[in-house]
């Protein structure tokens, strides 16, 4: 990290150089911390404190009525390990992540390659791909809910054209999670597309020219030249996609409420249910710790692995 100093670097040589340097350093400390203070207070109150408090509260029972919270050690975690719904939610979330992340990244690359070419209607295509990004997930969920409605939703109407029977897309354990995955991919791919598009525009056209002269096939060119050059973008998008896979549950709340039979419950949604439906805040804290652990792993991966391998700028 190259942090250049503003105030203390301006020490002029002279007989009082040391004294002024100390004064300047003192001033830099005071000014720096005063400028940071308002943001630091709010960050500490709503990010750092709650993260630590989650751990602390996960060792306590939930206060009920006139019974105050008492220390119960690892009991909440014991409960969690024996809670089948927790395992279902965790498994669902992993499936959700494993499906949405690669799907939206592959589609994003494909979209970016298309709208980077001189294709007919390029502007309209870009607009079509990006627009879902601007919609609230709640609105998106409402629209897709109608899409999936048995019998007279668009999906079943299309099935009807082929003589297939109606299907309860969101009501069936086999399809409900995949319906949510489709919605998420639809919403995210266009957002990731713009990062790939920007990266593609940085790639020199000379490379394609040279490849064409050499007679390199399109797929080979993509695999050997374009894709490696897009790697920093892919990793950036990957980190964001992973975080989103564990952070975004708006569509679960609107479309399925975790059902049928917890088939679409994701970790954060389950935390929301434990905390604000059953008001079991102690147990909710323990499950939140799992979510925080997942995010901590992502953070470590980025800080210790990626930042060493990729040189931004």
């Amino acid at each position: 990290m190259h942090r250049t100093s503003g105030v203390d670097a301006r020490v002029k040589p002279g007989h009082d150089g040391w004294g002024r340097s100390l004064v300047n350093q003192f001033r830099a400390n005071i000014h720096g911390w005063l400028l940071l203070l308002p943001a630091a207070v709010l960050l500490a109150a709503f990010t750092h404190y709650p993260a630590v408090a989650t751990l602390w509260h996960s060792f306590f029972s939930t206060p009920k009525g006139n019974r105050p919270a008492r220390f119960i050690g690892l009991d909440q975690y014991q409960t969690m390990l024996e809670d089948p719904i927790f395992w279902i939610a965790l498994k669902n979330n992993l499936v959700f992540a494993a499906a949405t992340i690669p799907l939206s990244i592959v589609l994003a690359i494909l979209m970016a390659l298309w709208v980077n070419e001189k294709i007919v209607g390029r502007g309209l295509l870009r607009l079509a791909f990006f627009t879902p990004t601007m919609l609230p997930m709640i609105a998106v969920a409402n629209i897709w809910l109608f899409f999936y409605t048995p019998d007279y939703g668009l999906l079943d109407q299309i099935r009807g054209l082929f003589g297939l029977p109606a299907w309860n897309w969101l009501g069936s354990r086999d399809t409900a999670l995949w319906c949510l995955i489709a919605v998420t991919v639809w919403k995210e791919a266009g957002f990731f597309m713009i990062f790939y598009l920007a990266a593609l525009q940085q790639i020199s056209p000379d490379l394609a020219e040279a490849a064409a002269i050499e007679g390199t096939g399109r797929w080979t060119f993509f695999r050997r030249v374009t894709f490696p050059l897009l790697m920093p973008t892919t990793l950036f998008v990957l980190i964001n996609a992973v975080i989103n896979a564990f952070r975004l549950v708006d569509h679960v709340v609107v479309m399925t409420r975790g059902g049928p039979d917890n088939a679409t419950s994701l970790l954060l949604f389950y935390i929301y249910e434990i905390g604000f439906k059953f008001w079991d805040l102690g147990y909710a804290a323990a499950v939140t710790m799992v979510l925080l652990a997942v995010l901590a792993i992502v953070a470590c991966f980025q800080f210790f692995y990626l930042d060493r391998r990729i040189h931004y700028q």
Partner: protein
Amino acid sequence: MTGLGRPSPLGAALNTLAAWLLGILWVLPLVYAVWTAFHPAEFSTRFVPTAPLTLQNFEAAWAAAPFPRYFLNSFLLVTGILAGQLVLCTLAAYAFARFKFRGSAIAFALVLLQLMIMPDVLIVENYRTMHALNLVDTVTAMALPYVASAFGIFLLRQAFKSVPKELEEAARIEGCGTLGILWRVYVPLARPVYVAYALVSISYHWNNFLWPLIVTNSVDTRPLTVGLAVFASTDQGIDWSIITAATLLAAGPLLVAFLIFQRQFVQSFLRAGIR
């Protein structure tokens, strides 16, 4: 064309066709929603080109729930958060960009932590805090966890670091204090970054749902997203045309702004994303 090599004419045609198929697939849900919202209920799933257009669904939705109030709440929430973010992030970013103070490296790492562990996942403990502060069901409670934004601090710090030192020296010689320099030199030079950050922040918070859902429980504080969810779920009997119209109402302001200022929005997301 840079991403792939040169295609054959047939390949190019297939390529265009595939791109258009995906494009159509991508707008289909939205087109479907617009169709349903602007046609009478009996045409909501019958796609007859001669179906009469109507605004009645919008009128019905507007009358069925306190949408004006929800709009006001969303507006207050988004502007409140943005105003707070601009002030706090500017100050903090200036500290990180231009002051070599004790503990700045650790402080910066602690700030960046919020990029991973966002308030979105700390709902349980933040609810406890809001409850203890007696702030549940206020716009303040919805806004507070997001005001000190690590993302904003990071973005502005980068911008401030690229400002030439000489400008600061000149302002200092003219008698500007620390805040004077920030206001007269750094803030004006970082204007494009402010615009980018503002657009990203507005889109994020206009669309945010889970935390507002948890921390509000009355019409007087609910933002549009929560209002829409309550509207669509409590009135099960209501028909899809009206729900879809309400959905478009809620998404409308941002969508229209995006369609008008497409380039600025996309540029902003890019600027904000590439660190």
